[in-house]
């Protein structure tokens, strides 16, 4: 019987560890977890184009890098174009290494959108993964196109004149779907098995695929670092972040909600919505507005399950002794 060193054990884990320990993410970072889960599903034969942002900054402080996969960070706005270039080169060399693009919500919804649309329109065989933590976190929580309505950030503060962000969270998935790509889906760190399944589906299709992963940020959303999974799960169970799949623009899959939770259960855990719980009439109006948005999602994506299913919001994360070997 040998006493194994920690490092020996770390190098022999049953799943591929695409991102190693020692990165500088904040405690409880949803994005760090999401990135590792993605690479567990893709495996090592990938090349990654990564946008500027938290993920890129906390994994590659020279001379250290947390990545075990081939990885390139160029700029904030050109990730999809860089990925397209990589895909073209690999196609020219006849290699079937998969190309992944990693970006935050800023790098996907806003500054990187043009390059993304171009890549989708040209049909490059790339899986674009957006880690959506709903604001510019690396620069200290400024509002982005993905920030939810009424959420407070440093550039959409809850002030006297306004209750957090005025505009709505951009419906990026519908815009992506309008490019009629083979596969586009949303996922959440609260449902890792579902997330990994969708990554594998993204890789299998021939042509561009898109995955938007809800990744809580304890710093930006202002909740305890231990609550990241609980918050992510409630986002799905309230209908505010639906887990859906679109193929060629049509809705082909959805994780049904077994027991719909009111949005207040999700909002009250987060400091970015604290101003909605004062006895200001506008706060009550904004809470009603967010509930209406959730109800709308449930209706148009037909999220309410009529009977308990194995993979609905209560069943998908059910644990089994010995863990989920396959997922």
């Amino acid at each position, binding site marked *: 019987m040998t006493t194994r060193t920690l490092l020996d054990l770390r190098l022999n884990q049953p799943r591929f560890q695409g991102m190693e320990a020692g990165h500088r993410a904040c405690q409880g970072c949803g994005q760090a977890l999401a990135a590792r889960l993605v690479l567990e599903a893709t495996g090592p034969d990938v090349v990654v184009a990564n946008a500027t942002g938290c993920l890129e900054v906390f994994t590659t402080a020279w001379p250290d890098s947390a990545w075990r996969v081939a990885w390139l960070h160029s700029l904030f706005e050109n990730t999809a174009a860089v990925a397209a270039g990589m895909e073209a080169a690999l196609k020219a060399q006849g290699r079937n290494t998969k190309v992944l693009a990693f970006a935050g919500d800023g790098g996907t919804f806003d500054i990187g959108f043009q390059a993304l649309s171009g890549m989708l329109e040209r049909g490059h065989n790339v899986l674009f993964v957006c880690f959506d933590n709903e604001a510019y976190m690396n620069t200290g929580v400024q509002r982005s196109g993905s920030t939810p309505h009424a959420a407070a950030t440093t550039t959409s503060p809850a002030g006297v004149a306004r209750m957090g962000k005025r505009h709505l969270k951009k419906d990026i998935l519908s815009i992506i779907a309008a490019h009629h790509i083979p596969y586009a889906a949303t996922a959440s760190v609260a449902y890792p098995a579902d997330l990994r399944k969708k990554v594998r589906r993204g890789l299998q299709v021939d042509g561009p695929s898109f995955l938007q992963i809800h990744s809580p940020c304890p*710093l930006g959303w202002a909740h305890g670092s231990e609550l990241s999974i609980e918050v992510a799960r409630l986002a799905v169970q309230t209908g505010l972040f639906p887990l859906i799949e679109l193929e060629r623009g049509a809705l082909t899959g959805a994780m049904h909600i077994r027991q719909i939770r009111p949005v207040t259960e999700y909002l009250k855990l987060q400091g970015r919505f604290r101003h909605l719980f004062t006895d200001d009439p506008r706060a009550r109006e904004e809470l009603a507005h967010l509930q209406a948005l959730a109800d709308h999602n449930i209706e148009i994506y037909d999220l309410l399950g009529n009977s308990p299913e194995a993979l609905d919001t209560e069943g998908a994360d059910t644990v089994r002794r010995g863990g989920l070997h396959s997922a």
Partner: protein
Amino acid sequence: MIEIRIHGRGGQGSVVAAYVLATTAIDVGRFAQAFPAFGAERRGAPVASFVRIAATPIRRHCQVAQPAFLIIQDETLLELPETLAGLLPGGGIVANTQRDSQALSDTLGHPVHALPATRLSRDTLGRPMPNTALLAAFLTLTNLLPVAGLKDALAQRFKGDVLARNLDLIDQVAAATPAGLWQERAHATSA
């Protein structure tokens, strides 16, 4: 000119502490400068911030390499070598810890004033924010600036109940700290 370095963890208000200390100095007619160790403060990661206080305008814009005093917001940082790097011989350390000052002084080889700032702030402010208590202790020990100045500086940032609790905390700590214990050390380095 006096140079002070404040050590904490991302999210513990080390930068606010530096700004409040410099604001206090400026409000009482002194010249001062405060800035964070520039970098991505990750929640939980060790961070430092710097304060310079002087009688004449401070024109330099560079890091503090040899501080005269340290303020330690999280005692686990005492275990990192870089925390004490460059501290002037005999430089005083105000540390947020339950441990005994003398024991720490012997171990670290510098005069240490220990106070349980986290507990004090949790009892009085209702949440663990050690910076106000540590600043109050520092000013009482060094008489560098009047403690009343610190209260005015906080009045610019907080109001209502939060301000009242902070002022109460300052009085508690000032009363429990040996006034002027490091006064001559503060004087010597400010020449």
